[in-house]
């Protein structure tokens, strides 16, 4: 229990730090400083929203009778804001592309390795024989 609370604290602190960094960026962009209370409020808000997101994602996955959270669940979560949805779908496509590319690369590598090994084996065999 205590450890769990400690972990929570650490998490919150991490979120707070990240939010602070982002706010600093925005502040330097717009040349308007952020007060500490604002940053604290934003970090608290994001933390609670993340909790809600997690619960919703789990519910969505269960609703689709799955036990793993999918990109579909994430898209369902983000459907309200159009820009966010667009962004997510784009990212999703990028990721899938990347994955497919990686897969093709891996396959190529494997094939090359196979051929190499076959060649090596053949060579070895030749050498042997």
């Amino acid at each position: 229990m205590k450890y769990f609370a400690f972990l929570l604290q650490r998490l919150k602190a991490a979120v707070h730090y990240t939010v602070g960094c982002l706010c600093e960026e925005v502040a330097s962009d717009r040349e308007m400083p952020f007060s500490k209370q604002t940053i604290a409020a934003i970090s608290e808000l994001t933390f609670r929203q993340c909790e809600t997101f997690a619960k919703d994602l789990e519910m969505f996955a269960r609703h689709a009778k799955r036990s793993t959270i999918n990109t579909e669940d994430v898209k369902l979560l983000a459907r309200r804001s159009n820009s966010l949805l667009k962004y997510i779908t784009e990212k999703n496509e990028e990721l899938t592309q990347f994955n497919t590319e990686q897969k093709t690369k891996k396959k190529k590598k494997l094939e090359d390795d196979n051929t190499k090994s076959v060649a090596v084996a053949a060579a070895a065999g030749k050498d042997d024989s």
Partner: protein
Amino acid sequence: MAEHYNRDSEPTTRTLLRRVLDTADTRTPRRRRSARIGAQKALLETPSSRRLSTPTKMNVRRGSHRARSIGRLAHVHTSGNLEEQTPRTLLKNIILTDPESSIMTPKSVVKPVPTPQVVRSSRQESSRGSLELQLPELEPPTTLALGLLAPGRKKQRLRLSVFQQEMDQELPLSQEPRGNASASSLTSSLSLTFATPLQPQSVQRPGLARRPPTRRAVDVGAFLQDLRETSLALASPDTVLEDTQPFSQPLVGHSPSVYHSLPFLSHTEAENAERAVSRRTQSSGSRLQNHNPGKPAQLLAGKAKKIDVLAVSLPNNSSAISGEDRVEPLQNGVGEEAEERMEESLSVSEVMGSTGTQGSVRTEKSKGHGEMTEALEAKEPEGSSEDEDISGRTASPELASSTTEFLQARQPQFLEPAPPPTTTVLSLEPLEPLPTRHPPRARTHGSRPRQDPHKTGLSHYVKLFSFYAKMPMEKKALEMVEKCLDKYFQHLCDDLEVFSAHAGRKTVRPEDLELLMRRQGLVNDQVSLHVLVERHLPLEYRQLLIPCAFSGNSVFPAQ
């Protein structure tokens, strides 16, 4: 003992009967008797504050009862389980137990004069201990109750005594050998039933004391005459059918409508506007009386040869007009074009009118309200505000718009018979737009703007909102509320659609709704959907939603 005291202080039927049977029980040769007698004594010795003057009387009477009652009461077969019985079973026992007549000297009674008659007559009949017990218990309230009560009670007791006297007179003739035992037991039980309900209400709440219904002799002649008049006025099953409709006009509205319909055939089209005006006023209900004298006069002056035609077309007209009347007050925003078109189509159909087929069509239409919403999607209603209905219909399964659908559907019904008789139409102009609209009917629904029908359907919710607000609200505020409700319902339906698609389904199911409510926070780990259903929905819906096991190893609804 404590509970006896509590029961004493609450003069309900149950407690009175309980007391009755407590005393009745003393007659049984059971070992409980002593306990009962002891309890009785306790009862007597712990009177409520109201019965200050009477406990002594009660004591005396009960003593006499007890002395007399030991030799009585053949079967009290259920006396053993009296504790678990309801007043109904107690009464039943009272009726069953054999009352024997006994001679009791009437005690000096506080009641007014008529009541001793009751007391005496009842005592003559059966005078089971229960009865006497009842009557003395009626006494204290009279002494302590307000002066208002007393005259009312006198009246009631008068009636009681009159009834009992009548019973006495009738019964001895028929059942003398039995000594009025069983019949009088009935009457005594009946008088008992008369007696007991009187007391509790008036003692506790004098304002709720029920007055006996004033009964006047039924004038058969007048009744039959009224029957004849109403049968003349209605004379058709269609109006009877329509009386069952939710928004049906009262009978007053119907009969003038019938009268209104009769002159229609006699008039030409030029008077359509006048008729429309008359109909509108009729539907508004304000100037009914002004038009009524005019129309019946015309009716009387009407031609006899048309009466047959009228009689046949009466169903058509009455159904059409009454339907229209219903539509009109409900839909204030209907364009006048639509109305005129409807009227003209009606007049057209009336002219065509004597064909029974049309009448059957109309009756079918008036009957088939349930299929309206489905029929709607094929038809196209007229009028500006109705145009957007179709588009909204498929997208809005909400109840909010169901009322508008209902309303919209009534109008197309009247338009449909208009297109078929296009051959010998007097006025072709209103019908021409109809055939031209037929091709657009086949168009898909989604292309139209959805704004209006939702808002007209949401007016119901807005009215509810303004009611619960308990404060006067600006019109703009109400409009904003309507917009918000509109958005809310749109979001709701979008979510439901998305959720069902997410689960790979095409139909929205309760699971989707549960997910939505979970997101809303209404359903959580502490509160489940079934709990909410039980809390807020009526029993009929609960039966449909929560599966329940029935006999024969069946579960409804099936899962």
